[in-house]
């Protein structure tokens, strides 16, 4: 297994392999030369804007577009009725008014019968400029008949609740998945219920029950969503520049939606200004820009504004969780049961593997050794924006980690036990791996206690507890919060995982030019992760070609092989493996060429980084660069050997990888104002092999900031009338440099045993692991007030109210 060792340095000053290396992509970004979708301008390009519903639930009686059409500079105005009139030669319905979601549901492209959430797409204007398009949107007159909105998930379950999806002939607001299930369960319901009942009856045991809400939040990347569509009417070629984390999957979906032949569709994701899951879904705006170019014959640009972004494209969480944890009084966990009410909004637009309709929530049993666990997830429609899996959640593992880590802390409080001690007592042991969890996941590897102790050492845990005791005696409220998380990432094995029938394996292609320079073509797509740098390092590690001699191409479906894209921390576990495998194929081809040149058998050669040489005679050898030229030369090769070194691969992961980590957060709470100050944040991640440690740390930093934001300030709330109360950055608060401390990072390295370079992925680890650490710290600070739980976000008013015994109910719409 690969570990980071002494790595040779290239002439360009870069590690020929793994190690911290400055990023290739920075050269253009620091000069303002990035190329984001709004930077794409094509000759004759038109602009567009979307009219959105002011109502959460209303019937559309009529739409008058005449004044908009009369505005000089307006080229076309489309409504849902117009889309119904455009025939679509596709398997997915006969017109363009509706499109499929990634969860086999349907979603309106433009509303026809009703609007079902505030901000839903109602009409589409194409005009000569962005300003004119926005003016025209204001001139469209829609007559709505308001209906009672369903703004909280519990209300959605009421027998008398208004039915949102009457378009599907539904009589209630339940959601049925593609397998016909209305609830999603895993684990053993009977054994778990029995274990909890036994504990309840046993005086030596306790059972703690806690309702835990993970409220609706939004990933809010700095760049909103957008697209530029151009249909060449002569060739029939559709080119779509778009903010896509999954260009190939999007191409296939557009082929389905638009009924266009897939070979005529080219999806180009240019530089992406952050994704975090926001850019996984296919949104009406993208589809409308495609329809716009079909209708006008010209390129059409659509760029979402910030309000549209926060109100319509994607959301995350909205999980109402009730957990029960049973344990012995000396702190041995026995069983956990979790019941979830999942708010999916008006259309089930969740992006996740088909067989996992609750995502990977079922990994909620966490990092602990106990036999019985069970969960049940019940999804419902509400009059909120669709989406559900976004914001770096690793397919709902964020929610899972949050509930188990809150439950463990609630248990510690109940037992009067230190939360670190309780965790250490229950963490899985190294010799238990591979470990099959009570819900059937096979964790690949881990040294949990070691990682936990590294975090405690960096934090100076015992000293912090002493300081806390002193402060409490003085009436000061300091809190220490721990989160220990395990993720399952790198979706995934084809036999288990697909999205819309597309298996989650990734293709890759490596070309080695005659001069020994190489081009690697990836199916995954960077949104800032630094793929152009790290993937070159993987090839360098395998082949000894300096990373500056390797160009990495991603984001263009015409230039890269098929794969499902970048989200859920899947790039390094899947495409990173593919990069190693394809490099090894090249290495083996190079061996045959070298053997021919050295007039020996391939078996007589041995590899040292960048060179094949004769065993026992190191002087006789050929470098990879020499071999590259030979492979294109007149050198006679053995019968059946084609020449050239180029290779392709498709990597089908045998299992997920299981990165994990121990996080410790230290906060100071002012009980008079409720203000929480995050004083320190310690993160020790074990993501297996670190290809570029500097970039790994950067990923962790960003995720911790996300966690601080969600724990303390971010919330997409609604009032009972259906108004979205988080529709701008004035209302949807994100952490700034003032709320984030200078993070303290550590590491342990436990390579994944089944990944070719031992990497496990890290992109979402900190977003997954950090919220619980912050909330646990605040609850720890508030313990003297008798507070055991308050829901996120722990804003000053919420903390102040929690101290008064009346925390804010984020599980309900606001009166």
């Amino acid at each position, binding site marked *: 297994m690969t570990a980071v060792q002494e790595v040779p340095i290239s002439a360009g000053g870069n590690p020929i392999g793994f190690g911290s290396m400055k990023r290739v992509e*920075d050269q253009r970004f620091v*000069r303002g030369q*990035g190329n984001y979708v709004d930077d794409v301008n094509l000759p004759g390009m038109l602009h567009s804007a979307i009219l959105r519903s002011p109502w959460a639930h209303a019937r559309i009686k009529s739409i008058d577009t005449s004044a908009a059409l009369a505005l000089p500079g307006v080229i076309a105005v489309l409504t849902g009725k117009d889309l119904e009139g455009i025939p679509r030669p596709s398997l997915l319905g006969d017109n363009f008014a509706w499109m499929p979601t990634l969860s086999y549901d349907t979603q309106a492209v433009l509303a026809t019968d009703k609007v079902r959430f505030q901000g839903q797409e109602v009409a589409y204007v194409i005009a000569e400029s962005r*300003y004119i398009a926005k003016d025209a949107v204001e001139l469209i007159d829609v007559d709505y008949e308001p209906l009672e909105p369903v703004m909280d998930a519990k209300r959605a379950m009421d027998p008398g609740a208004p039915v949102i999806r009457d378009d599907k002939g539904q009589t209630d607001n339940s959601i049925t998945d593609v397998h016909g299930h209305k609830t999603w369960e895993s684990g053993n319901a009977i054994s778990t219920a029995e274990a909890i009942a036994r504990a309840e009856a046993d005086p030596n045991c306790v059972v703690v029950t806690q309702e835990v809400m993970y409220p609706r939040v939004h990933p809010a990347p*700095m760049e909103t969503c957008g697209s530029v569509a151009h249909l060449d009417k002569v060739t029939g070629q559709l080119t779509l520049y778009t903010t896509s984390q999954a260009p190939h999957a999007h191409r296939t979906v557009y082929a389905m939606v638009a009924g266009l032949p897939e070979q005529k569709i080219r999806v180009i994701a240019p530089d992406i200004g952050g994704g975090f899951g926001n850019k996984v879904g296919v949104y009406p705006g993208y589809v409308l820009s495609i329809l716009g170019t079909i209708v006008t014959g010209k390129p059409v640009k659509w760029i979402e504004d910030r309000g549209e972004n926060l109100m319509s494209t994607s959301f995350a969480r909205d999980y109402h969780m009730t957990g029960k944890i049973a344990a012995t009084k000396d702190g041995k966990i026995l069983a956990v049961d979790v019941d979830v009410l999942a708010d999916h909004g008006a259309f089930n637009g969740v992006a996740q593997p088909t067989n996992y309709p609750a995502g990977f929530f079922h990994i909620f049993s966490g990092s602990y050794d106990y036999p019985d666990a069970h969960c049940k997830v019940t999804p419902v429609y509400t009059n909120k924006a669709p989406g559900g899996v976004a914001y770096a959640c690793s397919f709902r593992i964020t929610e899972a980690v949050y509930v188990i880590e809150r439950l463990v802390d609630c248990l510690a409080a109940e037992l009067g036990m230190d939360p670190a001690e309780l965790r250490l007592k229950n963490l899985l042991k190294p010799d238990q791996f591979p470990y099959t969890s009570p819900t059937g996941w096979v964790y690949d590897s881990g040294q949990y206690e070691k990682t936990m102790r590294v975090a405690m050492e960096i934090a100076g845990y015992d000293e912090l507890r002493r300081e806390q005791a002193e402060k409490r005696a003085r009436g000061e409220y300091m809190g220490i919060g721990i989160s220990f998380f395990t993720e399952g990432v790198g979706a995934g094995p084809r036999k288990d995982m697909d999205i819309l029938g597309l298996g989650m394996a990734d293709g890759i292609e490596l070309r080695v030019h005659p001069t020994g320079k190489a081009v690697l073509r990836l199916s995954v797509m960077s949104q800032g992760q*630094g793929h152009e740098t790290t993937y070159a390092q993987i090839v360098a590690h395998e082949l000894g070609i300096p990373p500056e001699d390797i160009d990495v191409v991603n984001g263009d479906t015409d230039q890269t092989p098929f794969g499902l894209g970048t989200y859920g921390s899947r790039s390094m576990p899947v495409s990173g493996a593919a990069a190693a495998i394809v490099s090894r194929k090249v290495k083996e081809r190079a061996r045959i060429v070298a053997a021919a040149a050295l007039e020996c058998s391939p078996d007589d050669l041995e590899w040292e980084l960048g060179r094949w040489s004769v065993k026992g005679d190191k002087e006789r050898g050929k470098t990879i660069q020499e071999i590259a030229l030979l492979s294109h030369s007149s050198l006679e090769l053995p019968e059946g050997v084609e020449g050239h070194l180029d290779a392709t691969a498709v990597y089908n992961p045998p299992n997920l990888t299981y990165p994990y980590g121990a996080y410790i957060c230290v906060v100071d709470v002012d009980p008079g104002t409720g203000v929480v100050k995050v004083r320190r944040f310690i993160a020790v991640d074990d993501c297996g092999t670190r290809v570029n440690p500097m970039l790994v740390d950067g990923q962790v930093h960003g995720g911790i900031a996300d966690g601080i934001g969600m724990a303390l300030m971010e919330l997409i709330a609604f009032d009972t009338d259906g108004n979205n109360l988080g529709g*701008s950055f004035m209302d949807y608060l994100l952490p700034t*440099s003032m709320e984030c401390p200078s993070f303290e990072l550590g590491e342990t390295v436990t390579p994944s045993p089944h990944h070719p370079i031992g990497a496990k992925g890290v992109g979402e680890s900190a977003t997954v692991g950090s919220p619980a650490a912050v909330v646990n710290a605040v609850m720890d600070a508030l313990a003297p007030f008798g507070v055991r739980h308050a829901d996120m976000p722990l804003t000053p008013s919420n903390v102040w109210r929690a101290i008064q015994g009346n925390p804010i109910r984020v599980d309900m719409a606001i009166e």
Partner: protein
Amino acid sequence: MEISMKINGAEVTHDVEPRTLLVHFVRENAGLRGTHWGCDTSNCGACVLWVDGTPTKSCTMLAASAAGHDITTVEGLEKDGKLDPIQQGFIECHGLQCGFCTPGMLMTGRWILDNNPKPSEEEIREGISGQLCRCTGYKNIVDSIHWAADHPAENEVSA
């Protein structure tokens, strides 16, 4: 209406609608797309450039208000093919990931150092607190600005 302003030292004149925002004038009329747009409400700072040497959120300033003034954008930082230390600092310290907030952060970072060549961590954090970054958690941005403070260009006067 016809609007003229100096951008990165060059006179730029265009006939635009009076309501044209400075960010759109710079991006669409002057064709300098390093300045980004991110929120409409002056919260995110992706659009920060300098007006007469002062960091300004160009999404909430009319181009007409900038007429006759001196604008500096991220494209104006590099001099004679040599990166400004603030640009180099962001590369050295991994101060950017997606790059979308970066131009605004660079402009503010440069301004902080021009006014305070040896800023403390707290001064840097306060200086960039009007700008959002979703990727870095700010730690490496702070480090990048410190790096630039420690590596002034040869023609700069160090404190």
